[in-house]
């Protein structure tokens, strides 16, 4: 009924009672129709270092989630994603992008095989319509469970120890990109060894009704390990270090693009490894992707490290020490080579762990080869300047314990 009348508000996640009580600076951000904590502190340092040194507890419930079930569930996912779903074992997770028939990215997310005929798909944008359109004639039920399934991301070197303490069964055996059922505070959860930070980490999926007891149990069990509620701003820095991109920031969905130049293919986004051209049969975008695979890509998203000494010189020229933003910056910055613009940065950030100024950049062929020297536009005391920089392979930060 019309009870929304007096409160035309953005949605709150199932963890809102806890997160709101802790969000001291009232730093809220919008995420897919929800409000999400930007940071729990005035700065992001403590939360960032929790990701890299302890364990950060991040409410990622706004992720769009769909359950796809039925005899043709695998067939549907095999058709809409470029990955070979036949090879996805029960309890395994694939990360993938998916495309329109021109081989241009629509969205990206994870596919988890919950059972032989049952999958969970996550996405950044609503995807129900796209799935339904592709499921015509298939025996498959597609259910959006975004509101029903609450999700926490526990990221950081201590995340496993915390889960071992809080869960009914230890998670030591849970491998990278695998998922298993478990219980926390007596509540049924599924735990996947996935995340958006490039560190050791897990995502915990539960019924929305179980959200608060699970949160409480993790906070209590994790306090000795330094568990720290963490907002999405610190996660944004970590994901750049991990070389992970974001829809609407680092690429535009083909359905949103106004002009062809705004679209990107999986190859251009560095997701060539997810495109299984060897799998049998048609999948959406196949022909275009085959063509691009043989002809090569015009663009590629790669890493960029700004040369710190060069940055220092640019600031020193006007008598200033170098200045970089303390958070990830979502804004386009032109990249040049020999005076010609050859691309742009879509997200840049100071990396506290690497002590480097880094960026996700999109460069035209042939300038995307690692080792290529370019310059990036910066603003020094209200003037546009060029800072020297070098193209590097992604990710920037890849700790050995991430996969171990």
């Amino acid at each position, binding site marked *: *009924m*019309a009870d*929304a*009348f*007096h409160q*035309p508000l*953005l*949605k709150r996640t199932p963890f809102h009672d806890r997160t709101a009580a802790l969000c001291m600076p009232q730093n809220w951000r*919008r995420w*897919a*129709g929800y409000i999400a904590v930007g940071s729990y502190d005035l700065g992001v340092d403590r939360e960032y270092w929790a990701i890299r040194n302890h364990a950060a507890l991040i409410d990622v419930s706004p992720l769009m989630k769909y359950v796809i079930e039925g005899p043709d569930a695998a067939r549907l996912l095999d058709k809409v994603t470029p990955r070979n779903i036949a090879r996805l074992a029960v309890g395994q997770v694939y990360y993938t992008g998916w495309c329109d028939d021109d081989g241009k990215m629509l969205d990206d997310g994870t596919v988890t095989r919950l059972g032989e005929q049952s999958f969970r798909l996550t996405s950044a944008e*609503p*995807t*129900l*319509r796209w799935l*339904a359109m592709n499921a015509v004639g298939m025996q498959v039920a597609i259910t*959006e469970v975004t509101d029903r399934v609450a999700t926490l991301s526990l990221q950081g070197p201590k995340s496993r120890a915390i889960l071992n303490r809080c869960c009914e069964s230890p998670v030591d055996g849970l491998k990278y990109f695998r998922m298993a059922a478990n219980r926390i505070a007596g509540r049924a959860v599924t735990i996947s060894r996935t995340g958006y930070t490039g560190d050791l980490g897990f995502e915990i999926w539960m019924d929305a009704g179980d959200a608060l007891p699970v949160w409480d149990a993790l906070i209590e069990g994790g306090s000795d390990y330094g568990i720290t509620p963490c907002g999405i701003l610190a996660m944004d820095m970590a994901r750049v270090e991990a070389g992970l991109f974001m829809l609407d920031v680092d690429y535009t969905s083909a*359905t*949103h693009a*106004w*002009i062809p130049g705004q679209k990107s293919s999986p190859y251009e986004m560095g997701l060539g490894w997810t495109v299984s051209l060897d799998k049998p049969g048609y999948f959406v975008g196949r022909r275009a992707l085959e063509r691009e695979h043989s002809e090569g890509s015009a663009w590629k998203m790669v890493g960029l490290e700004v040369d710190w000494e060069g940055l220092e010189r640019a600031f020193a020229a006007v008598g200033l020490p170098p200045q970089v933003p303390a958070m990830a910056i979502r804004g386009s910055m032109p990249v040049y080579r020999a005076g010609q613009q050859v691309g742009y940065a879509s997200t840049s950030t100071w990396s506290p762990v690497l002590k480097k100024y880094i960026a996700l950049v999109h460069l035209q062929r042939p300038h995307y080869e690692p080792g290529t020297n370019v310059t990036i536009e910066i603003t020094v005391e209200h003037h546009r300047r060029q800072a020297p920089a070098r193209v590097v392979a992604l990710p920037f930060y890849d700790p050995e314990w991430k996969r171990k």
Partner: protein
Amino acid sequence: MASNTYDAVVIGAGHNGLIAAAYLARAGRKVVVLERRDVVGGAAVTEEIFPGYRFSEFSYVVSLLRPEIIRDLELPKHGLKILPLPSTVTPLDNGDYLAGWDDHDLTRQEIYRHSPRDAEAADEYSRQMARAAKAIKPILGLVPPDPSSLSWRDIKGLLRLGQFGASLGEQELYRISKLITQSSADLLEEWFEFDPLKGTKAASGIIGTFLGPRSPGTAYVLLHHYMGEIDGAFRAWGFAKNGNGGVTASIASSARALGVEIRTGAAVQKVIVRGGRAAGVALENGDELQATIVLSAADPKRSFLQFVDPQHFPDEFTQAIRDFRVRGSSGKVNIALSELPQFTCMPGEGPLHRGAISISPSIDYVERAYDDAKYGEFSRNPYMDIIIPSMIDRDMAPPGHHVMSCFVQYAPYDIEGGWDDARRDAFGEAVISTIEKYAPNIRRAIVGKQVITPRDIERIAGITGGNIFHGELLLHQLFFLRPAPQWADFRTPLPGYYFGASGAHPGGGVMGAAGKLAATEVLKDWR
């Protein structure tokens, strides 16, 4: 006594006439605007119909008033403020509602409540319509249009081969072909399942037309509404401070500051033609004004069939103007209220009261409303677009009291047996009893009401046929066909006589583009 010799005489002090005059004066010309009524504003007037209660008597929202006009004429300095109209709510028969907000997430959430499928479809529908509008715009929106080089047959060729073809995919070509021919009901049924959503979207395809949502051609009208959004007039919908009379008052003030003379109570009888050129006008009071050019901002029928002797026009032009469809199909009920209407679906007072309220529970509802009109009756259960201006601008009503503006469709100009006081009252009663279903306290809150039929629009505002757009916004009456083939560039077959009103390209709404573009063409010819 001022001399009666001018560079330009503009007929009609509606927003287009005033804007044309202001632009001409801005270019250093001596300009007079002649207004038949004692007030300026045309159909954009604010009247205190009941003491203390002020109404935008006819047109009641500002749709896409061109931002460059606001800048060029410095309208904010002359008092123009366009206040936001942030939502549309459709009350449902079950006591719930469907709302649309000026925020994507809130709108999605609201549609999702009723239909998850439609929530996604709505996003994609808007994007596809916007893209189709962007694709078709360069071809149809040539300003001023070049009528001699474009025929309908040529457009297809242009779409395929022309300079715009490159940006137009095969898919878009098909989509546009469909949009041009479909009914809005057919289009919307391809996309959506929730009836009130379809009904509400369909309604914008029939406003000001004498068609129903199942009539072919109405899908295009939906597309037409997306044209503005891609044209720099983004977010220009709103409610003007002091009502729509506030818009024309600011333009009149700006025009006067630029040296324009505005004469009210000055009804034009004839355009004076000398040596095959328009040379001035004769007023009904016997005065004659001499001018180098005459620009009419009256409706096409008056401009070409009444003010000018047909001998000055080629037959096919006169015929085209005769055929121009100006059938009024809507009325207006302005209500003074002692309290806020209590809609069952929105008890108390909330943000949705500051937006539009659409009585459009389904496509069938709107189509049935049309069925009545087709056979010469007003709709017993009409489609309505309601706003409560006093919720947006508190100066419109006494404290604690309210004014309500109800745009009502259908009310045919030619009603069976003709409009008289009894029928007008019956029409008003149909409107009140329709509102009463959703807001039961309405009747006891009424302090006074004004019921306006298309006949009244014609009689008071002087628009032939009482059509709110001076002629329906149908594809065959738009762009290079508005008001007549080959004469969409604001010139007319009579040299020195120009046309810059809602009946000219690009058509209706308090947009001002026709007045500005007409003045631009006049100045080009003078150069």
